[in-house]
């Protein structure tokens, strides 16, 4: 079990919550909540240790496209980077669809 924290610069805040995915084997859940700060904070809790660099790369790529201020919580149970990106994009589609 490992907890990782990331901080990204952001512009306008998200105005609604989103929750996608489940903490099942090979999957993860992503929770997005509005934040009062002008940045996005991501807390990753993962069952698999030692993938700090891959997490950083996956999140860096996602947050180069998603620039809304938010509080994001990721609970991971061994998902592939492909699944992580898919869940993040799904959550992003949900907060945008209003």
């Amino acid at each position: 079990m490992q907890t990782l924290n990331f901080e990204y610069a952001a512009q306008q805040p998200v105005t609604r919550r989103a929750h996608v995915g489940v903490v099942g084997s090979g999957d993860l859940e992503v929770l997005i909540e509005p934040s009062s700060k002008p940045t996005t904070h991501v807390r990753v809790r993962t069952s698999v240790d030692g993938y700090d660099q891959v997490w950083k790369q996956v999140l860096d790529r996602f947050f180069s496209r998603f620039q809304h201020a938010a509080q994001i919580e990721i609970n991971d149970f061994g998902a592939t980077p492909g699944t992580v990106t898919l869940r993040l994009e799904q959550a992003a589609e949900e907060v945008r669809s209003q």
Partner: protein
Amino acid sequence: MLNMIQNDGWSKRRASKAARLARIAPWMKGSALETGAIVEALQALLEPGDAVALEGDNQKQADFLSRSLVEVDPAKIHDLHLLISSVSRPEHLTLFERGIARKIDLAFAGPQSVRLAQFVADGKLEIGAIHTYVELYARMFVDLMPDVSLVCAEQADRQGNLYTGPNTEDTPTIVEATAFHDGVVVVQVNEIVDELPRVDIPASWVDVIVPADKPYQVEPLFTRDPRLITDVQILTAMLVIRGIYERHGVTTLNHGIGFDTAAIELLLPTYGEKLGLRGKICRNWVLNPHPTLIPAIESGWVDSVVCFGSEVGMADYTRARPDVFFTGHDGSLRSNRVLAQLAGQYAIDLFIGSTLQMDVEGNSSTVTEGRLSGFGGAPNMGSDARGRRHASAAWLDMITNKSATARGRKLVVQVVETFHKGGEQSIVETLDAIAVGKKAQMPMAPVMIYGDDVTHLVTEEGIAYIYRAEGLEERKAAIAAVAGATEIGLRADAKRTGNLRARGIVATPEDLGVRRTEARRTLLAARSIDDLVAWSDGLYQPPAKFRSWENSHADTQL
């Protein structure tokens, strides 16, 4: 037959065959041999150094004959040259351990690939070549003629005619190569009956029929449990349907056996239907009877399916759908691997499959460190047939130049998730296969599908329309653009990717109008094996290992 032998120096093979048959005559009653006499008979029939075709592909195996062959006395029978399409059973390699066999020409070694690599390293076994299926069978007619072939059938009648049933597969081809060049054909049968449902192989091609101690082994290799399909695979399936099948108007095709393609099959009646594509795409298939194709067939998507082999549990279903499947006058499925491979080469517009590794130039391989697995039929399906001369809309759509002699091209699509479970990158700088090939002293690297044959790469990041890339540098850039967070993907330059998107060489899900929020398991037409049984109206009878009431019950919560 034997009275045609003349001592004129032109009939040595025929004379050798007569001598072999004379040696086993004491055990024979007509063309029938008793089960218990097989080891002695093989010992009398075979000669050291013989080329022996031992039938075994990735589905059915002449396992009674292989288990018997391993019991012959190596002092008498040794240095055999085995021709096996799929090295699947432990005794295939025990033959080398005992010195009964020395050399092997093969096409695939799935379950025995680690042990095979070890035997090569230890010098216990010499590999002629690792072929594709059709290559190996073609060579049986050119420079690898079997002296003896050991094959299997479901039933024989008293005259020696054979019924090979739904799993006909390779048997007629191996028997033809042997029987018509004076080799000896030995067939294990599940039973001998008075009347066959139909004759798949005539008695005059067959020399020895032996009832097996138990029915031949057959593996359900093409059954994919929908329960295991992930949302990422559903996303890539949506991309394929929109960005490739719909865009190019693909009507004739072959699917690989992975979960990526199973997901596509299960999205046709849902996502495909919503897009209004029924009747416009995916009508004529070269495919084994995949259980995951049942919902599409039942929904009226599929006009025809021609099969390489059968699939365990699909006999009653295929029998009940003769407009779709090729069936005999008895009603049961007829399959033929060589003819289906030929169809897959020349008569279809698209092949799509998965791989374990793809390099930055688009070359792909399933060979990884310590395994000598081979590729079966994938290299044939996954390549352009340059001898093709008939046109179709999808094939012509691959033309990218204005030359007066421009020709179309087969669509060869690779689906790859950028990382495997466990974090390994699937898009890499250099294939593991290159080092494996060097270590095993292979004359060339074991590449499954070459980058210059691949027309499309699909990942969860989008589609690279590789056939549109101008030159190798641009092909590499297109691959990197969909390689996600892999080292190759991180090299992609955002500006260049933008340019590739603008020119239609790369497309993201957004570019194709594919919504990621739709990529959920609820989109699958069947979410469990039980759902497939229900779609088939109870005609599909899954093998025990795929029956799981608890699992499908849990799935209803998704």
